């Protein structure tokens, strides 16, 4: 088993309605000097979260104690930029298990899926409704059901289904990763290698 199983998650959510949140904001490059994957959560959104003298920026959502939970709701085009998996590790290490957005950048989405953080893509309208609901009541909960591929705003009952391919869904439900799968096709890969022209 490579990571936590993901079945259903019911949680309050942290709102971050900024568009084009890039991986340099999620984890700035100067914090990529580690050789293990522990502790990145401390520097999640470092420069939005802390001033230059390391005091917290009180207007940033992660420093506002009324917003908490295992779900991060971001603006459109979340995770653009670099391929650094450290961004997904930071999201996970901070305690999020699911990121919701009306649009994800490709590599970030892939990286999340590879470490057991579920990216849930929803419509822009639903995204707005969720932001409004959280701002109206920070205790608003979302329910994410991977088996059924649905996300529900519990206060209103609004529900949408989301896309994930069957292979990845099974992996996440069981906590398997791609290496588990690839290891089982070694001989097929070795035969393929012999046919490569270079």
């Amino acid at each position, binding site marked *: 088993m490579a990571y936590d199983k993901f079945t259903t998650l019911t949680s309050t959510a942290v709102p971050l309605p*900024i568009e*084009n949140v890039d991986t340099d904001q999620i984890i700035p490059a100067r914090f990529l*000097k580690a050789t293990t994957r522990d502790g990145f959560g401390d520097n999640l959104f470092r420069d939005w979260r802390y001033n230059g003298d390391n005091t917290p920026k009180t207007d940033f959502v992660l420093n506002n104690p009324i917003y908490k939970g295992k779900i991060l709701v971001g603006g459109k*085009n979340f995770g653009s930029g*670099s*391929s650094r998996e450290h961004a997904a590790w930071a999201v996970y290490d901070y305690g999020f298990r699911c990121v919701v957005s009306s649009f994800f950048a490709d590599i970030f989405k892939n990286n999340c899926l*590879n470490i057991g953080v579920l990216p849930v893509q929803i419509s822009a309208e639903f995204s707005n409704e969720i932001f409004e609901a959280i701002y109206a009541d920070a205790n608003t909960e979302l329910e994410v059901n991977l088996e059924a591929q649905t996300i529900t705003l519990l206060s209103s009952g609004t529900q949408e289904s989301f896309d994930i391919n069957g292979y*990845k869904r099974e992996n996440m439900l069981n906590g398997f990763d791609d290496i588990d799968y690839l290891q089982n096709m070694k001989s097929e890969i070795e035969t393929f290698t012999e046919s490569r022209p270079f």
Partner: protein
Amino acid sequence: MSKTLFDKVWDSHVVRNIEDGPDVLYIDRHLIHEVTSPVAFVGLKSRGLSVLYPERTFAVADHNTPTINQHLPVEDPLSANQLKTLEDNANQYGISHWGLGHQNNGIVHVVGPENGITVPGATIVCGDSHTSTHGAFGAIAFGIGTSEVEMVLTTQCIMQPKPKKMRISVNGALSKGVTPKDVGLYIISQLTTSGATGYFVEYAGDVFENMTMEGRMTVCNLSIEMGARGGMIAPDEKTFDYIKGRPKTPKGADWDKAMKYWETLKTDDAAVFDKELTFSASDIEPMITYGTNPGMGMGISNNIPSADAVEGGKATYDKSLAYMGYAENEQMIGKKIDYVFIGSCTNGRIEDFRAFASIVKGRQKADNVTAWLVPGSHIVEAKIKEEGLLDIFETAGFVLREPGCSACLAMNDDKVPAGKYAVSTSNRNFEGRQGPGSRTLLASPLVAAAAAVTGVVTDPRELL
């Protein structure tokens, strides 16, 4: 059945197609560097796995290296440890390693093509989003995460859903002072940073046909900045001339055999793309960015657009301009700048330094500007010296540094201070990208040179 260039290369690398799942894609060449590979080796060791084909992986130190005094020990202990970890892992698993000080060292996407690691029709990955650079040769090349680095190390494969296909054609002739960087920034400004997400791009049309290999690398490099996983250009005589005789390209009968395959690598006439976009070369002028993502670019003679003229929400737009210290409808020409950076996998090749030299020759660096000239590799550095460019730079008051990623992502000491403005030939102008609080204006080497000698944003056409 008619196929695109992308289909031909992708389909020939599919080891297994999983129903309602990704393709198992074979990877011919794997590049690794010190920042995104250590945890992959940790994973591999913890599972008791080994590297399946070490001869298909190449380790290069570049992201976290100093650009002065490379002959001395690296001062920052964390950086030194990362570099040592890359070297130890490479040695342990029999992977070739071009570390700091090695004659072939440089930015991984510059040294790959220089040494013939990059060939047409190959699949090439690296834990770095600008791996798209190698698409200039008709390869499928894209950035991957560290979990995928581990997959490639242990199985030479990754699992990817096949992306959709987009063709971007630019036809006509580029005007004076318009470089491949401007073409890339122009396309991104038209598409936004998410306009090609989910797609793999093929660039077509006279502009790319007439472009040098180095220019094609600049354009393909920037593909990720419009959200595309990668971009590619069909190989032609220029491509074959560039790669022939390089250390790691096929030789003799192997070359002839490879050529037969490479000559088939073009999109069939009847092939269909999921999306087609066409632009006119004459609409492109030297570009500059004014905001905090690469899509926020404009012709240098224009004014900063107002919020209602751009896609996206006003709150995000206002936040971006506030960070930059700019306002809607302002001119960019004449804005004071503090730093100039020429280098990176986008614009760190010899042609970029020639372009920079063409403007600074006979002029002097402006007193208010700190300039970092960072070659993409030792090979580029040697050419700068051979061609007499170094003399031009030094006479004009510039210093040449040693190769590396440098101020593009500012992992090392090459950091732009908070609040300062940098005209940078790199690829990202995100908040704090070049150092906490830094403000980046992305531009071509010509625009960078014009800013370096005038101290303000200047239209390079006036100095050519």
